């Protein structure tokens, strides 16, 4: 059990997918201006990341590795993720319209969110996790993304009313804020080996 906890702490704080691994930066800076969209995006990413990692794990272990086609991993994974996202979107629209209204508009954006593909590649190839570990890692990475996104949004919502020099308004100060946030997360280094 404890290794799963370590995995979670590591993925959420120490090697935060956005602030330490540089993944998912476009939505991180793009949707961090309003709290309600930020939480919606966060939830959607957690959901899709976990699902995508689970499926790509099987694609890699049961399809690509036995056939010796590891070099096709990128194309196979992205095809799976793109299809998955679209299927999830259709499924939600039909079966859980309430959830679709809350997350729907974020789903198409997630296809090109490198946090999803990145997490899958990290879990399946680089770290070579077993299935459970991969699932926990993916979930925790999604949580880490949401945490970073919500933190940044909270700060940027307050920044929006602060007197900021004109040329720094918007994205520049958002990036500087993200930098300070990343600096704070550097403090977690060494917590988990």
């Amino acid at each position, binding site marked *: 059990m404890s290794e799963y906890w370590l995995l979670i702490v590591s993925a959420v704080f120490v090697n935060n997918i956005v602030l330490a691994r540089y993944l*998912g930066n476009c939505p991180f800076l793009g949707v961090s201006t309003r709290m309600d969209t930020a939480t919606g995006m966060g939830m959607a990413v957690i959901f899709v990341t976990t699902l995508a990692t689970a499926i790509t794990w099987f694609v890699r272990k049961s399809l690509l590795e036995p056939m010796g086609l590891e070099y096709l991993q990128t194309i196979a994974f992205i095809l799976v993720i793109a299809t998955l996202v679209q299927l999830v979107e259709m499924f939600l629209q039909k079966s859980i319209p309430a959830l679709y209204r809350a997350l729907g508009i974020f789903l*198409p954006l997630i296809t*090109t969110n*490198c946090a999803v*593909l990145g997490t899958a590649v990290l879990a399946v190839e680089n770290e070579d996790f077993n299935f459970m570990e991969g699932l926990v890692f993916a979930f925790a990475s999604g949580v880490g993304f949401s945490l970073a996104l919500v933190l940044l949004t909270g700060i940027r919502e307050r920044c929006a009313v602060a007197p900021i020099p004109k040329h720094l308004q918007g994205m520049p100060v958002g990036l500087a804020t993200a*930098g300070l946030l990343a600096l704070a997360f550097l403090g977690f280094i060494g917590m988990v080996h």
Partner: protein
Amino acid sequence: MGVAKEFTKGLWKEVPPFRLVLGLCPTLAVTTAAENGLGMGLATTFVLVCSNFIVSLLRSIIPSKVRIAAYIVVIASFVVIVELTMQAYFYPLYKVLGIFIPLIVVNCIILGRAEAFASKNGPVLSIADGLGMGLGFTLSLTFLGALRELLGSGTIFKHAVLGPSFEPFAIMLKPPGAFICLGLILATMNLISTRKS
């Protein structure tokens, strides 16, 4: 005339990571040195040009419902080609760029150009667009990489520039430095743009 326009817009007016604030992950992650930025930029440019070309050729036969999936397959194929080629001939760079090479496939710039430009224009214009955007992206990454390398290691393209008495800002090579450097560049570009107009 049109080709030149499509080409040059990517160099300043719509230069991807700075103006459109797209493709940030590789922009931030691999720009610890000018060389890495250049390599990533060129790899992305290759994929961008090729995928723009193919997508513009296929644009009339792809049904709109599987449009995104089809574009992604095209892009991913070129990414795999880049991946294999780099592994074969530029192994150290391949190692440094690591996971960000497969992630070229989800670089919003590439899918964005495929969707926004190549799917509506002919092959020649699409190539010009891809080339311009790609070069803009490459220059941006190289510039950011050079800046971070200079501040973080005191070198540019591995040539010592600042001399031994310079104490490098190690933080510039870490995520905080990446965010803050990019933020300052954006602010400077805003300043220049308003001065111009």
